């Protein structure tokens, strides 16, 4: 009898779990904030694996998840406190970092004040290594996982610092090439003039 009750409870839990997994908990408030604050067009790809968000059957959407992925999704959904290692299949690296850094509870709480999320993220975290912290990319509406996406002038300043050696090398090479070419052309011209003068004599 007890076994039967466990079986019924287990089946009910499985049904509820499956139904729950099929419901996406996307938080468009964050996307809206990023877009309004930056004036740039953004979409769900900032935090989610799929640019259209978690609903659907595409890659990185709930409808496409296998048992293992559903289990990872479940663990991520239960990560209410900060510091829990998560690997949600419907989130990208930045989305998972948000959950790990601030916890699911805070993400839900901040929906009414999405601007505060930037301040709660690790200010040193720069997942794409483009020199612009993820928190700033969120506020500026650029992609925290794409090195080519960012405020153009910040990217320029960062890359200028990083590429100092290459730029210096190209500068020296260009100057030497120009100097060499100029002298070569002057030499040819002088040789041609000398040959012409010799012919005239």
């Amino acid at each position: 009898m007890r076994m039967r009750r466990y079986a019924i409870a287990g089946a009910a839990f499985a049904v509820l779990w499956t139904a729950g997994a099929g419901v996406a908990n996307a938080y468009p408030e964050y996307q809206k904030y990023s877009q309004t604050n930056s004036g740039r067009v953004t979409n769900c790809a900032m935090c989610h694996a799929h640019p259209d968000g978690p609903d659907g059957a595409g890659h990185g959407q709930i409808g496409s998840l296998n048992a293992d992925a559903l289990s990872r999704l479940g663990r991520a959904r239960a990560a209410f406190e900060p510091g829990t290692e998560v690997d949600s299949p419907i989130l990208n690296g930045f989305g998972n970092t948000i959950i790990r850094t601030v916890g699911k509870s805070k993400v839900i709480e901040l929906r009414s004040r999405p601007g505060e999320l930037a301040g709660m993220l690790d200010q040193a975290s720069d997942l794409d290594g483009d020199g612009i912290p993820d928190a700033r990319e969120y506020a500026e509406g650029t992609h925290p996982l794409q090195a080519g996406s960012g405020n153009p002038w910040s990217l320029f300043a960062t890359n200028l610092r990083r590429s100092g050696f290459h730029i210096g090398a190209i500068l020296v090479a260009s100057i030497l090439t120009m100097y060499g070419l100029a002298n070569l052309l002057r030499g040819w011209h002088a040789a041609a003039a000398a040959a012409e003068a010799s012919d005239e004599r």
Partner: protein
Amino acid sequence: MNAVSKLSALAGFVADRFPVEKMNVASMIGKKVVPLHRMSWAYYLGGLTLFFFLIQIGTGLMLLFYYEPTVSDAHASVEYITNHVSGGALIRNLHAWSSSAMILCVLAHLITTFAMKAFEKPREVIWLSGVLMLFLTFGFGFTGYLLPWNQIAVNATKIGLQSIEEVGAYLPGSLATLPATIKETIQGEATVGQATLSRFYAIHVVVLPLLTLGLLGMHVFGIQLHGMSRGTEAVKVRFEKFFPDFVIKDLTAWGVAFLVIFVVAICLPFESFFSYTLAEPYNPLGSTPEGIKPEWYFFFVYYPLELLPFWVIILASNAAALVLLAAPWIFRGTSRKTLRALAVAGAAYLIIVTIFGQQIYDAIKGVQ
């Protein structure tokens, strides 16, 4: 005028433009001189355009090694070039930035040569080949824009091709179907897809470069034959030797241009000016994303197109193209002073619409 005299006039026209007696190294290089006056700086713009075109060829060939012109792989191959190929991001950025630099130089070259009346007899053929190369350069920009197969590329191309078809509504009789036929020929199928990508790719990497090389050969040959135009109405003009003085200065300008484009390409990703949503792979089932615009060098026609009736734009752009092509005959008797004023007006229009087009559009449409 009978056929013989027509042929004789034609032969005379060709002989004046391509004088055989000047076709030797001494005349075309050794004895060639370049005028020195306050607009002499403009003589370097043609060379700079050529330099950026050479960068286009070099970087374009490198991109060909990895780029896949298929709708399934085009975007992924561009991502692969950018993120995984050694130096790929730099080469791609060099290609993108130098294309913009080339268009900037070609426009500046056109405006300054117009202001200097460089189309005067016997330089009509040089002018014509230059104007045709300007059109080809826009063709390079339009066809190259589609190749990364991202949201902005495909959607902007769709809008561009749709505009061609819409011209038909303003043409009489059987001509009305011609634009649709042209669009279908370029597009290759019912909507922008694999056939379009294949055709744009072929046009971008084979057809346009071959046409450009042919016209470029004629253009440079003509310049070497006839020398730089005088460019000024001043009676007393100083000259410098083309070889080696001008050539050395020209090469120095190339060196500086290379440094600038290299620094920009290594430090500033071309796509950082778009929102990242526009750089995502094209989704045929998705709606047109916000922020779709052509490249900056089409703004001079894009913003008027958004603000004015379509027929006005067709009329104005066709008239402008005809005036450009026929400039040597239309402005034969016009003074350089008047031409300079016209050139300044044209340049001011291009600069204002390109830089402030969005603000003007927002102000007129009342967008907050």
